[in-house]
C-alpha cells in the first residue's frame, strides 16, 4: 500500500499542483525536470519492487488525469504542457505498473523535444509561451516539423513508439470498465491536447508583429537525435508488437 501511494505521488500531478506550483522560486521548467525524474524513479522502483496496483489508486489517478486535462487546456506554455502530459498519462503508469517502462521512456523522449522547443522559445521570444506565435509551419518549417512529430507522437499516432507501446499493452490485457475508462481517457486526452497545441502553434497565419527566428545547427542537433531515437524505438516497438 505504501509503495502504491509512493508511486502515485511520483507520477500523478496533484502534489505538484498543491505544493510545487505555489512556490515562486520553482519555475515550470524545473517542475518538468522534477516530474520526469520522478517518473524515471518510479520506473526503476517498479523493476525492483513488483507490486499489484490497487483499483482505488487507479481511480484516483484517473480523476487526477481528468483534472490535469482541464488545466492543460488553459495553458499556452510549453514547459507546463510537458509535465501536464506526464500527469495525464498517470493512470496508465499505475494500471500497468512495471510494464510501461518503454511507453514511459518514449513519452519522456517526446516531451523532452517539447521542452527543448520551450527553451528555444524562451531564448528567442522571451518565454516558453506560444500564444501569439502562430503559423510556424509556414515561416519556420523545420521547427514546425519537429513540433508536428512530437505532438503526433504524444497524440498516440503510429509509427511513433508511444502509440505502438500503448497498443501493445492494451492488446495484451484483460478489459474491464476501469480499463475502458483509462484507455478512452488517455486515447482522447492526449489527442485533444496535442491537437489544441497544433492549432495554436503550427496552424494559423504568421504573426506580423513577431520576428520568427531560425534554429541554429547546434540547436537542431538535439531534435534530430530525439527524432532518431524515437524512430529506433518505433522499430523496436514494431518488432515487439508484430513478431
Amino acid at each position: 500500500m505504501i509503495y502504491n501511494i509512493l508511486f502515485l505521488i511520483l507520477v500523478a500531478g496533484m502534489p505538484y499542483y498543491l505544493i510545487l506550483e505555489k512556490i515562486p522560486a520553482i519555475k515550470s521548467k524545473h517542475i518538468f525536470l522534477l516530474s520526469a525524474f520522478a517518473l524515471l524513479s518510479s520506473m526503476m522502483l517498479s523493476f525492483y519492487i513488483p507490486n499489484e496496483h490497487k483499483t482505488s489508486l487507479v481511480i484516483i489517478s484517473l480523476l487526477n488525469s481528468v483534472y490535469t486535462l482541464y488545466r492543460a487546456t488553459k495553458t499556452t506554455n510549453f514547459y507546463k504542457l510537458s509535465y501536464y502530459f506526464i500527469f495525464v498519462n498517470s493512470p496508465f503508469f499505475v494500471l500497468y505498473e512495471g510494464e510501461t517502462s518503454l511507453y514511459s521512456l518514449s513519452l519522456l523522449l517526446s516531451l523532452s523535444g517539447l521542452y527543448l522547443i520551450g527553451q528555444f522559445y524562451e531564448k528567442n521570444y522571451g518565454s516558453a509561451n506560444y500564444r501569439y506565435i502562430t503559423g510556424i509551419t509556414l515561416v519556420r518549417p523545420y521547427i514546425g516539423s519537429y513540433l508536428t512529430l512530437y505532438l503526433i507522437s504524444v497524440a498516440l499516432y503510429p509509427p511513433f513508439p508511444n502509440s505502438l507501446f500503448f497498443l501493445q499493452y492494451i492488446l495484451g490485457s484483460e478489459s474491464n470498465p476501469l480499463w475502458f475508462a483509462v484507455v478512452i481517457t488517455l486515447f482522447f486526452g492526449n489527442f485533444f491536447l496535442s491537437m489544441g497545441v497544433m492549432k495554436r502553434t503550427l496552424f494559423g497565419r504568421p504573426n506580423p508583429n513577431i520576428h520568427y527566428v531560425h534554429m541554429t545547427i547546434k540547436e537542431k542537433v538535439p531534435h534530430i537525435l530525439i527524432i532518431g531515437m524515437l524512430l529506433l524505438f518505433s522499430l523496436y516497438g514494431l518488432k515487439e508488437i508484430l513478431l
Partner: protein
Amino acid sequence: MEQIILLIPGIPIFIAFLLLFINKKELIPKVSIMLSSMIALLGLYGTYYVISNDTQIIGFDGLLVYNELSAILVPYVAILGLVIRKYATKYMWDEEGYRRFFILLNFIFASIYLFVMSNNLIVLALAWQLLSISLYLLVSFNVGSNTAVKNAKWVMIIHKAADLVFIIAVILTYQTFGSFDLTILSEKWLAMSHQPVDNPMIFVIGLLFLIAAMMKSAIMPFHIWLPYTSEAPTPVSAVMHAGVVNVGGILLNKLAFLLLLAPAVLHIAFVVGLVTAIFASLIMLVVSDIKRSLGYSTAGQMGYMIMEIGLGAFSLAIYHLIVHGIFKATLFLESGVLIKLARHDSNLPKRLTYELFWEEKIKGKSKKLFKYLAFFTILPVVTFVGVKMILTDDFFELNASIIILAFAWLTGTQLFLSFFKVSKDESFKVLIALISSFVIILFTYEFIGLSLEHFIYGENAVLFYEAATFNITTIMSFIMLSAIMIVGWLFMYTQHFPKVFKTDKKQDNLQWSFYKLLAKEGYFFNIIKALQRKKNDL
C-alpha cells in the same frame, strides 16, 4: 522474386524521406512521379502474377499479402496516385509548402497500400491510424486558413473515434478468436459459418468494425467531416473522394467471412447504407455550395457501397468504389479546366444530352407520352430479369438480387429522366440511346460484378448473399418490386404533370418542411451549434 511486390507500401515512405534531402524544387515532383511509377509497374506485375499463377504472395511473416483484392486495388490506387501527383506538380507549384505536400501525399498513399495489403489486424490498425493523421495534415494543408483548420478538426475527431472503435474491435477479435492473422481468421470464420453460431460477441465485433467503416466512409450520422473539407487543395480532394473514403468498403471486404457469422450486421449495413444513399443524394440536390454538393454526392455513393455490402454483394462494392473513385477524381481534377473555360463561355458547363439532342420541352398532356413512360420503366426490368435468369438459375432465391434489380431499374429511370427534355422528333434516336445505355450499364454491372465475385471469393460468394438475405418469399419480393415501380411511375407522372397532386396548402407546408430539412443538411450543424451555445452559457 515476386516477394519484391510486398515492398510497395515502403516505397512511398522511402520517397518521402528522399524528398527531405532534395533542394531543387523541380526535382520534387519528378522524383515522386518516377518512383511512384515503379509502384504502378510492381502492382501490375503482382496482378499478372496472382492471375496467372492463381496464388497469393505472402511475406514478412504473413503480415502482408498480395491477394486477389490487392491485385485489383493496388494498381488502381497506384495509377490514381500517379495522375494526382502529375496534376499536383503544376497545381501546387505556387503554394507554400510544396515539399511538405508531396511528403504528406506519399505518406497517405503508403498508408492506403499498407491497408490494402495487410494480412494482420494489428498492421491493419496501424495503417488505419496512419491514414487518419496523414489525412488530417493534408486537409489542413492550407494552415493559414481558419476555416480549413476548423473543418480539419472535424475530420480528426471522427477519424480518431474510428481509430478507437477499430482498436477495441481488434482486441475483442483477438480475445474471441485467438489470432490476428487474417488468413487464419478467415479460414476459421468460413468453417464456423457452416454451422449455426450463437455468440453475441461476434455480433458486437462485427458491429464495431461496421461503425469504424461507417466513420471513415462518411456514412450517416458520421458524414459531417466530408462535405466541409473542400477547402483542401484539389489533389487532396481527389485523394479523399477517390481513395480515403473507400477504406470502409475495403475493410468490410477484408472481414467478409466474419460478417457471414453476423447477418444482423449485414442488415444494419443495408439500412444505414440505404438511408445515407437517399438522404445524402437529396441533400446534394438542395445545398447551394457546389463543393459541398460534391461531398454529399460522395457520401451518397458510399451509402450505395455499404448498402451493396449489406446485400452480400461484396465484390460489387469493390467495383462500385473503383468506378466512383475514377469518376470523382476526374470531376475534381477537371474542375480547374472547366472554371477556366467557363470564364470565356457563359454557357458552360454543357449537358451532354443537350449536345446530342436539342432541347424542346414537351407541352401539354400526351397519352402517347404516358405509354412511353410505362414502356421505358417496364422494359428495363424485363431485360434485367431476362439477363439474370440466363446468367444464374437460382437468382430469385436471394432477395439481394431483387434489390439490385430495383437499383438497376432506378438507374434506367434516371437515365430516362435525363433524356426527358429531348425533341419528340428524335424519339427513335432517344429510344435507341436509352435502351443501349441501359443494356451497357446492366451488362457492365453484371459481368464485371460476377467476374469480380468469382475472382475474389470464388464459390464462397454465394454464401454472402445467403447470409444477407432477409428471408422474404419470392412473391413478397415481387410485390415490393412492383411497389417501387409504381412509386417510380407516380414520381415521373408528377414530374411531368406537376399540377395533378397540388390540391391544398397543407401539402405545400410538408414539402417546404422537407426542403428545409434537406437545405439545413439534416440540422446536424444546428444541433452542434445549439449544444456549443448551451455549453458556453453554462
